[in-house]
């Protein structure tokens, strides 16, 4: 097991790794069929040090916050290392958010420095939100065209200090990063992650899915996401492995990357995994009846031989045609961000491709449980990782209750949100809002959510209150957005939907014109944030003394309606 006990910070651990593995390749970056970069750990250090020095020369000091808004690429990781080296706090933001949302989070995080790509900077510049981010001083922009108007930003490529930067030590309890799990509407949820959170998570995860020099991780999930940050940066770098970045995520280039770069691990969201399954199934279905029968026999044989544990070498030989397009080196697909259906997991395992299925939250420092493949179980999310205490609160007679976690990987709280923090963390336990139970073998099984939110198959957490703004001034008496499962609990974590609860004015009816108005507003939302239907409510919404809607009380009222008839699809 990896021992990181001597380290106090991410920066210190990475600094040593850069020396220890100086000759190994750490990064490969490809743009379509062209390989753009191939860096050793020494090259990486030589790129990062001048950046750290320039940041320090610009006044960036211990505890200062710097945000990265970039697609996955080598400059993301080089910049992150420079920030940690200089003792800074990293604020990784989702490049897919709208510019207004990005400005809102930049303001909320108090970031002094922003590092972003030129096209993103251009979009940020066109947004009125800029005025709000008053802390922001230095902006670095990558790959700006020669004659580009940088609107006060510096070119990342030219932002290099002369001389050695001074390494800034941090302690384990210091803040390492602020990760926004979701919530860009009224109350951004910035998870405050300490250096200890990351060091402990790295030890726990690599105990089951280890990295070593020669391992190649294909980084597809956005690096601002807790999973890719851990298994697409910190984990592989600490162990001397290599990370492969693709500048385009078109399926054809992703497919090609597996064999071209002999990928060992990849992380995917369930949607992509299902798509991969569909593609393979189509290929199998196109085989002649004889070949199809032979394939099924081999799959059956593989299934029998890998019942108690994966046998990668054997599976690769038995099912060569299936494994070759994956490069023949794939050890596991890590799936995360959302719930994965058991039949998809089983499909891949039967082909000899283990899927590292697990359960985690940004608040818990990524993974809480992971399938250890001893043996593989498609019907659970695995056992708690080393160092994780998991409890089921107030279990019903069937054993199902709310999942709570305590570990050194759990965040210290939500930034500037003591009330939210107090709700989420009780006596040192993180209350997850997810429903689960342990089976006799100690595996955790999940059964839906207690909280008012959904997670899409693409791994996006959506809080209903965050999308209500588009329905402001809707010509109705009052409205409220809910996760359908919050109103009508279902023992399932798939196909979650949002709905709009409407209370019409006296005498008003739900007309086609109103439906069209709602639909038009809905279309202004990103596709994964859209509501799926409407529920009509004929009583006043319960409200607090300060006139805020009591969501839980309203949900209880709506729950009395029959979902089948009350839910009007949009």
């Amino acid at each position, binding site marked *: 097991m990896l021992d990181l006990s001597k380290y106090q910070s991410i920066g210190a651990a990475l600094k040593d790794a850069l020396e220890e593995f100086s000759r190994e390749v750490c990064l490969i970056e490809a743009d379509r069929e062209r390989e753009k970069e191939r860096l050793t750990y020494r090259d990486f250090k030589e790129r990062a040090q001048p950046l750290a020095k320039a940041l320090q020369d610009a006044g960036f000091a211990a505890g200062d916050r710097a945000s990265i808004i970039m697609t996955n690429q080598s400059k993301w990781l080089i910049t992150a290392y420079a920030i940690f080296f200089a003792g800074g706090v990293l604020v990784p933001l989702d490049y897919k958010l709208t510019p207004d949302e990005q400005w809102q989070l930049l303001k909320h995080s108090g970031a002094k420095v922003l590092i972003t790509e030129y096209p993103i900077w251009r979009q940020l510049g066109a947004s009125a939100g800029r005025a709000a981010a008053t802390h922001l001083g230095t902006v670095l922009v990558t790959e700006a065209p020669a004659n580009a108007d940088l609107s006060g930003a510096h070119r990342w490529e030219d932002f290099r200090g002369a001389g050695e930067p001074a390494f800034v030590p941090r302690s384990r309890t210091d803040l390492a990063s602020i990760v926004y799990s979701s919530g860009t509407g009224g109350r951004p949820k910035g998870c405050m992650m300490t250096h200890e959170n990351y060091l402990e998570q790295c030890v726990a995860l690599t105990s089951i899915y280890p990295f070593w020099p020669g391992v190649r991780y294909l980084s597809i999930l956005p690096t601002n996401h807790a999973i890719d940050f851990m298994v697409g940066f910190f984990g592989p770098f600490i162990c001397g492995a290599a990370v492969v970045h693709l500048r385009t995520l078109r399926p054809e280039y992703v497919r090609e990357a597996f064999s071209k770069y002999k990928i060992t691990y990849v992380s995917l969201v369930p949607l992509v995994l299902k798509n991969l399954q569909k593609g393979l199934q189509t290929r199998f279905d196109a085989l002649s009846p004889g070949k199809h029968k032979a394939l099924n026999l081999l799959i059956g044989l593989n299934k029998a031989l890998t019942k108690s544990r994966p046998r990668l070498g054997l599976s690769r030989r038995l099912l060569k045609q299936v494994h070759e397009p994956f490069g023949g080196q794939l050890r596991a697909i890590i799936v995360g961000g959302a719930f994965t259906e058991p039949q998809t997991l089983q499909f891949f395992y039967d082909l000899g491709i283990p899927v590292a299925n697990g359960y985690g939250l940004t608040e818990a420092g990524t993974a809480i449980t992971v399938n250890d493949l001893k043996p593989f179980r498609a019907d659970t999310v695995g056992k708690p990782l080393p160092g994780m205490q998991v409890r089921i609160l107030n279990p019903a007679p069937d054993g199902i209750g709310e999942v709570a976690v305590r570990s050194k990987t759990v965040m210290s709280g939500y930034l500037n949100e003591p009330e939210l923090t107090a709700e989420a963390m009780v006596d040192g336990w993180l209350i997850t809002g997810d429903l689960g139970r342990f089976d006799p073998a100690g595996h955790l099984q999940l059964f839906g959510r207690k909280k008012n939110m959904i997670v899409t198959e693409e791994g996006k957490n959506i809080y209903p209150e965050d999308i209500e703004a588009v329905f402001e001034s809707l010509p109705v008496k009052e409205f409220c957005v809910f996760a359908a499962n919050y109103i009508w609990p279902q023992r399932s974590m798939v196909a979650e939907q949002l709905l709009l609860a409407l209370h019409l004015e006296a005498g008003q009816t739900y007309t086609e014109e109103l439906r069209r108005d709602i639909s038009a507003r809905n279309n202004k939302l*990103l596709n994964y944030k859209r509501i799926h239907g409407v529920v009509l409510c004929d009583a006043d919404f319960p409200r607090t003394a300060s006139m805020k809607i009591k969501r839980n009380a309203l949900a209880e009222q709506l729950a009395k309606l029959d979902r089948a008839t009350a839910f009007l699809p949009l």
Partner: protein
Amino acid sequence: MRTLEQTTQEILDLASKHFNVPAGTLSPEDDFFKKLGIDSLQTLEMLSRLENHFGVELPDYEVQGVSDFRTLASRIQSRL
């Protein structure tokens, strides 16, 4: 050089052919996620086909957040 209208029409034609939607049922303002019933991955596949057709390279970030044919056409048009 194509006009924006021509580019838009060619995109509509290609999309209806690729996703088996009757020709003439798609319009520039349509949300292609909804109208074609496709997810983000299928959208990326569609983009690759459009790139081949128009002979341009469209970085992923250029189409981030785009969901209607007209905006997509303008992004392609700017690279023709």
